């Protein structure tokens, strides 16, 4: 029937193929599943801590689709589970980090979700908000310095981080030197218990771009395709020597900050329920079904497969050994000097 054709034609897929659209959904489902698994394991007493990224799935999957694997560099923050998976980290690597096993990239040293992967181009970072942003700018400087065209650094942070002095200093430097750097702000309205209204007086972060002398754009972070378009545009600009951009995706943090936080102490259930109406995961499922990219059964099968993959990764990671006591003493410096001797 012509009806299906018109509906498919009215979806702006920004040049993405059906396969890519399905890949985006799978990433979103995987992020949610892995994220939830962390919380479950914490409730079961199996891991001491987990962070929640529910609400960020569209933003991260859309952004990941615009990332050029093997070329671009990612400088994320600790809520970017979906982005990490989206650029090539496996669920097994995610679970190793949650379980703090020796096999983890960081040898179990770092908090969960603090990935690092040279292979995937994911820079090591700490829990200190904004500390990674000058690093990202420095890395972008190195790319430009070596004349490596067609490579850029995608750096992410939350709304709260934009208040940090280092955020400001980094944006300024990137602008002066027209670096291949994209600052993607994942504005989920909350910084632990601090709402946007206490974080800044003017709620549209992208508007600060003009002050730095760089382009800025705001987009709907619940829409993975609009996200893809915004990130792709900014990354393309960066890769082709057009300099840095500030882009802001608005979304919402559905869960508490982490398993150590109780968000009912600072916001209402009504607010969260109201925002759930925008939940990007069911929303994108419905869109793909409506536009004939997937059937309802396809979606169901994909969910099951994602669950299977998560279960396998969980079991495999859980079975791995912890680091040993002797592992405390490696990688302090290169070379033989051991300061504790």
């Amino acid at each position, binding site marked *: 029937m012509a009806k299906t054709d018109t509906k498919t034609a009215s979806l702006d897929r920004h040049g993405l193929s059906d396969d890519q659209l399905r890949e985006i959904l799978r990433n979103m489902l995987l992020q949610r599943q892995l994220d939830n698994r962390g919380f479950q394991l914490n409730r079961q007493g199996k891991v001491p801590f987990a962070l929640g990224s529910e609400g960020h799935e569209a933003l991260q999957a859309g952004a990941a689709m615009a990332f050029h694997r093997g070329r671009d560099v990612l400088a994320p923050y600790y809520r970017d589970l979906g982005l990490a998976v989206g650029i090539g980290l496996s669920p097994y690597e995610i679970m190793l980090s949650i379980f703090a096993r020796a096999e983890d990239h960081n*040898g179990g040293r770092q908090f969960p979700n603090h990935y690092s992967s040279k292979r995937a181009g994911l820079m090591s970072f700490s829990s200190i908000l904004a500390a990674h942003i*000058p*690093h990202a700018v*420095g890395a972008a400087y190195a790319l430009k*310095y070596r004349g490596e065209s067609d490579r850029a650094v995608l750096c992410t942070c939350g709304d709260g981080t934009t208040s940090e002095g280092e955020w400001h200093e980094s944006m300024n430097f990137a602008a002066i030197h027209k670096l291949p750097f994209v600052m993607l702000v994942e504005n989920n309205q909350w910084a632990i218990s601090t709402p946007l209204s206490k974080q800044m007086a003017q709620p549209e972060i992208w508007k600060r771009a003009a002050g730095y002398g760089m382009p800025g754009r705001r987009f709907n972070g619940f829409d993975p395709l609009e996200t893809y378009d915004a990130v792709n545009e900014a990354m393309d600009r960066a890769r082709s020597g057009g300099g840095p951009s500030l882009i802001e995706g608005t979304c919402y943090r559905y869960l508490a900050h982490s398993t150590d936080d109780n968000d009912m102490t600072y916001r209402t259930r009504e607010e969260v329920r109201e925002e759930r109406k925008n939940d990007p995961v069911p929303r994108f499922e419905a869109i793909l079904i409506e536009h004939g990219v997937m059937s309802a059964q396809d979606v169901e099968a994909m969910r099951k497969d994602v669950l299977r993959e998560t279960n396998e990764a969980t079991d495999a990671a859980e079975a791995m050994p912890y680091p040993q006591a002797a592992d405390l003493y*490696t*990688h302090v410096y*290169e*070379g033989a000097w051991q300061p504790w001797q």
Partner: protein
Amino acid sequence: MAVSSTSAASTLMNNVEAVRATLYEAMKNDDRTVILGEDVGARGNVFLITKDFIGEFGERRVIDTPIAEASIVGIAVGMAMEGLRPIAEIQFADFIYPAFNQIVGEAAKIRYRSNGEYTCPLVIRTPYGGGVRGALSHSVCVEALFYHVPGLKIVAPSFPADVKGLLNAAIDDPDPVLFLEHKKTYRLIKGEVPDGHYTIPLGKANVLKQGTQLSVVSYGLYVHWALEAAQNLEAEGLSVEVIDLRSIRPMDKSAILQSVEKTRKLLIVHEDNKFGGIGAEISAMVAEEALFHLDAPIRRLCAPDVPAMGYALPLEEEYMSSPAEMAQAMRDMVRF
């Protein structure tokens, strides 16, 4: 760069010239080397250390940064993680505090937290110390704030030949090194510097003067005054050994212990405040490992624990220790 030469194998120069010459060679020999900091480009650094570098190496490699210390170090960390070999400058050590997290919380821990996958080969250079009427914001010593931190290395040479050798070693070091340059010694101290490339390993002190009755350990500007005091005491028949630490972390424990075992007395002289300064760690170490070699309590001659040396000369002089005060401390200890 005009410097006079007294022999074919070495050149006479002062400390600022030694820094400059070393940085110049590093920039020439390794394309990955970049220098960043305030006023390092067009101005050539406020002590003229990088004068004309921007003309020769270009503004891509000699970066005049905005006024933003946290990101001067942070951006350098990112460059290092991505394969460059940055040398970041903090214009005066007194301005280093906004960058404290990037040095202590980030640079020092990058290798460790990523299990060796990411590394941070970074040099942070900064002029420190007083005696130049620098008052509260151009005189401080900061080594005690940083030497505590595993993952960092800290160097404080006093002579031009050591400046070159240690700076080369710092630049080659795959881990972050804080390179401290005492600003009063920049033009004051001259010495022969061997030509050609060489390094001095970090963690090796230098016994400047042999002696039998007292070991004096120092670093920075005070090494020169302590040496002067010890040399003058020869005329009084006193035999004082003077050790220049050169490297604060790693610190040459065995050189200190060896000396103390010989002289049986230890005087530590440093410009920084006494409580929790470098002398505190040396004292604890010697007490732990050489107690029965000591014939006198360990003594530390340091700045009083007041917040700063003042701008007015009497305040600066009261804060700092003079060669005469050092000589008296040495006499007292020898005669103990």
